[in-house]
């Protein structure tokens, strides 16, 4: 707190400096130069002085201003309450900026309204200097911004639901196609030649594939729709559960590092990430003996997990593509895959505030890494 006499002294120094710098020019000169509208209002509310910027803003001439009261410069709906406010201010005159948190409007001579911020400073004898800022363009921008955010939220919501609704409605006709094809294959078996039977078999297989694709879209779109509470998850336990559920064939060894941490995350999500990475490692193995390893490295602010395999490996040019929805590197007839698994991994990991990437040497194997922040987002 600066003592009062020092404040007074500083003001005097500033006034002297201002007089010297402005070469004795007075307040009228300042008001004429000001870019913002300024009015001096008398204690009875009459306009005593107006600067050229005020003429431009309100559309009144200087002469016309002098016949007006301050209430004439605001829309009718604010006038009644303003007299009281003016009296209230006269009781406690101080510099004040109006408008923050309030919706203030000015009224032009032509009847047009504009959004405004106003600051008021007491002069002498109950006179008040009011500076009126035209904020209509800022207000318009704010409105526009609000509208766009709202629109974006709607579009986003729609998008989230769209995938779900569409895939849901695709299922029913697909099921009908599947059933009908199945019945034709069964009922007309004797009337179909080998080629016809093969065509039906392919048809049914494609129905299954489309069904799996739709399920993939559903699974993908569900991430982020339904939020689960974050829990403490013992990764040792989770890894064991996932490996058991995948039941790897005997030629595949899955080794899990000792002492995986216990982390805070959504359990279903983490389970899905591990499951998808492991099932990929198992599915694409091309060696007589498969070795898959789950490891973890502690970083400053996150846990970095890895799933390494000795499979076929992936060329670096495919590193981006494989995380995109429906992208596979093998013809679907050779390895039945929807191309959804890694997109789901990426979406879950990123929604939990982590990152996913891979290192790979073609022919030798791949290592997929993902991080989980130590503090749950």
């Amino acid at each position, binding site marked *: 707190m600066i003592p009062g006499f020092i404040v007074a002294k500083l003001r005097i120094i500033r006034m002297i400096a201002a007089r010297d710098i402005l070469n004795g020019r007075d307040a009228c000169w300042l008001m004429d130069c000001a870019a913002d509208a300024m009015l001096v209002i008398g204690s009875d509310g009459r306009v005593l002085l107006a600067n050229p910027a005020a003429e431009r803003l309100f559309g009144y001439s200087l002469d016309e201003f002098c016949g007006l009261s301050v209430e004439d410069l605001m829309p009718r709906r604010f006038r009644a309450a303003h007299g009281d406010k003016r009296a209230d201010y006269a009781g406690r005159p101080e510099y004040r900026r109006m408008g923050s948190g309030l919706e203030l409007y000015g009224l032009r001579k032509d009847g047009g309204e504009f959004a405004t911020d106003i600051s008021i400073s007491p002069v002498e004898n109950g006179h008040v200097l009011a500076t009126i800022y035209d904020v209509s363009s800022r207000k318009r921008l704010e409105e526009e911004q609000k509208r766009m955010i709202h629109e974006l939220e709607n579009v986003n919501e729609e998008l989230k639901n769209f995938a779900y609704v569409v895939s849901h409605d695709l299922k029913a006709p697909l099921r009908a196609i599947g*059933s009908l094809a*199945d019945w034709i294959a069964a009922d007309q078996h004797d009337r179909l030649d080998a080629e016809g039977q093969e065509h039906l078999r392919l048809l049914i297989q494609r129905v299954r594939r489309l069904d799996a694709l739709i399920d993939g879209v559903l699974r993908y779109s569900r991430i982020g729709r339904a939020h689960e509470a974050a829990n403490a998850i013992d990764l040792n336990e989770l890894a064991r559960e996932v490996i058991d559920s995948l039941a790897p064939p005997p030629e595949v060894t899955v080794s899990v590092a000792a002492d995986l941490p216990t982390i805070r995350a959504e359990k279903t999500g983490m389970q899905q990430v591990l499951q998808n990475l492991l099932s990929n490692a198992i599915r694409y193995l091309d060696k007589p003996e498969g070795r898959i390893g789950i490891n973890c490295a502690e970083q400053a602010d996150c846990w970095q997990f890895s799933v390494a395999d000795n499979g076929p490996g992936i060329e670096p040019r495919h590193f981006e593509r494989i995380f995109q929805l429906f992208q596979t590197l093998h013809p679907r007839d050779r390895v039945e895959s929807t191309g959804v698994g890694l997109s789901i991994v990426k979406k879950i990991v990123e929604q939990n505030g982590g990152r996913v990437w891979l290192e790979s040497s073609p022919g030798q194997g791949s290592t997929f890494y993902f991080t989980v922040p130590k503090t749950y987002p």
Partner: protein
Amino acid sequence: MRIKSSPILLIEDDSVDAMTVRRALKELHVANPLEHAENGEEGLAYLQNAAHAPPCLILLDLNMPVMNGIEFLHAIKALPAFKRIPVIALTTSDEQEDKVESFELGVAGYMRKPVEYRQFVEIIRTIDAYWTISESPL
């Protein structure tokens, strides 16, 4: 089915899905007659018609026009004469909300329609086996 004479009421708007149920029941030699209503409202009308034998089991689709499965469940659970008839939801929906709501409204089971007919048959086989062993409130 333990009760062999009463009909099974199928409430289903998709005609191929209805054919699927009919075919599976026939394949499994389930003797109960199958009554088919195309939406919840028709299902209620069937139940409330005194000339119709009350069903021993209701197979209920959820997504239907006019009156959907959840609305039908609300309606039937408010009717003392029908609220004890076991209802099994037979639906495409994998929505958690649908499952929760169905069980809150007292369904006896919630089956997702598989895309493959053979799996469909297995589901119907299981339903038939269960309701052959289980006592019925009717």
